[in-house]
């Protein structure tokens, strides 16, 4: 099948329309598009990935460093009403997330938390207080279970033995065929982990598609 020729101006217009639709859909879902979050004061570094459905209480109290990523269902809290019935006050505190931090799906960051550079927060972890740079955290309440050097070393040792595929052609939405799905299923049949080699860092725009 020959590739269809699309006029560049049409492509630009379509991009703008799609962006508009995504923003409207986000609104309908009660989510804020990242442009709105930044306009609201969220301090955002370069190449930050924010997945769909991430919740921010007060975006202006949150800072996220370069190359960090927040997975689906992450909750970033900056206020705490738990003592309101007793004191008549709401506690408010900032949340600082460093550079190259990964926050796993469904994690909860409590008010006042400071997460150092290069930390990894496991899925579903509940993070409170200061976390030193390079920590790997998991659990509720979140505990430091490892450091990122040991974590990376463990995986780097596992990668040469494990099946590795590129993202392109091996992921949903990146043209994987049924044949390759079957191959991937078979290669990972006995519960072993495989890896997808890195793509250029995802952008916020990708996440909101």
């Amino acid at each position, binding site marked *: 099948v020959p590739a269809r020729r699309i006029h560049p101006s049409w492509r630009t217009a379509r991009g703008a329309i799609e962006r508009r639709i995504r923003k409207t859909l986000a609104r309908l879902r009660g989510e804020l598009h990242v442009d709105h979050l930044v306009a609201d004061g969220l301090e955002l570094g370069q190449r930050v990935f924010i997945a769909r459905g991430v919740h921010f209480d007060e975006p202006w109290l949150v800072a996220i460093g370069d190359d960090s990523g927040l997975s689906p269902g992450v909750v970033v809290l900056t206020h705490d009403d738990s003592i309101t019935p007793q004191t008549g006050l709401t506690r408010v505190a900032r949340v600082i997330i460093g550079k190259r931090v990964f926050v796993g799906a469904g994690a909860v960051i409590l008010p006042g938390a400071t997460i150092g550079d290069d930390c990894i927060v496991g899925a579903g972890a509940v993070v409170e207080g200061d976390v030193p740079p390079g920590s790997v955290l998991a*659990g509720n309440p979140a505990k430091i279970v490892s450091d990122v050097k040991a974590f990376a070393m463990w995986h780097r040792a596992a990668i040469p033995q494990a099946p590795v595929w590129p993202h392109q052609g091996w*992921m949903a939405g990146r043209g994987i065929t049924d044949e390759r799905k079957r191959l991937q299923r078979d290669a990972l049949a006995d519960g072993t982990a495989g890896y997808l080699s890195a793509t250029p860092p995802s952008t916020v725009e990708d996440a909101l598609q």
Partner: protein
Amino acid sequence: VNLWTAARGRLEQLMRGAAGRVRGQVDVGRLVTQGLVLGRDVYVAATAYIDASQPWLIDIGDETLIGPWAIVLAHDTSTRLHTGHTLIGRVRIGRRVYVGHGAIVMPGTTIGDEAVIAPGAVVFHDIPPRSLAMGNPAQVVCDVETFAERHRAAIARDPVWPIPGWTGRGITDDRKALQRAALADRCGYLKSSA
């Protein structure tokens, strides 16, 4: 009449699908066409999230229930910045498994048949068949037989109602008051029709 019923059913299905897409929910039917292996009579709550980037690595057995806001992942991006690779792994959820509200299942894990995963649990390791796991990280606290025995004893003692006429669908105000009064100091049960 049959044609009309069928058409209306299809139309309602389409509208639910469209509403789901607007809400940003994952359409399980579409995941199945992409390779998700789904047994029969599986219930996946509308707000549950089944990994849409690697659905063909996920198997869910017959009569399993995935609760609201539960997350089932087949990939883990936490390794990407430090190793240049994203981890992927198969997820096998057995038959007649219950995955509670808001639980998270990580890549590479197997949940055995008839296991019960409590609400909010985060499953990082394999869960043996017929066990009850809870907490973050999820730990096995007892076997399903003990769990069922405890509830069977309570069912014999505590109030039990049938589902038809006693839930949000079709319960009267009278019955609501009765149910509230009966459960003032205890839990009760709803009997499944099946």
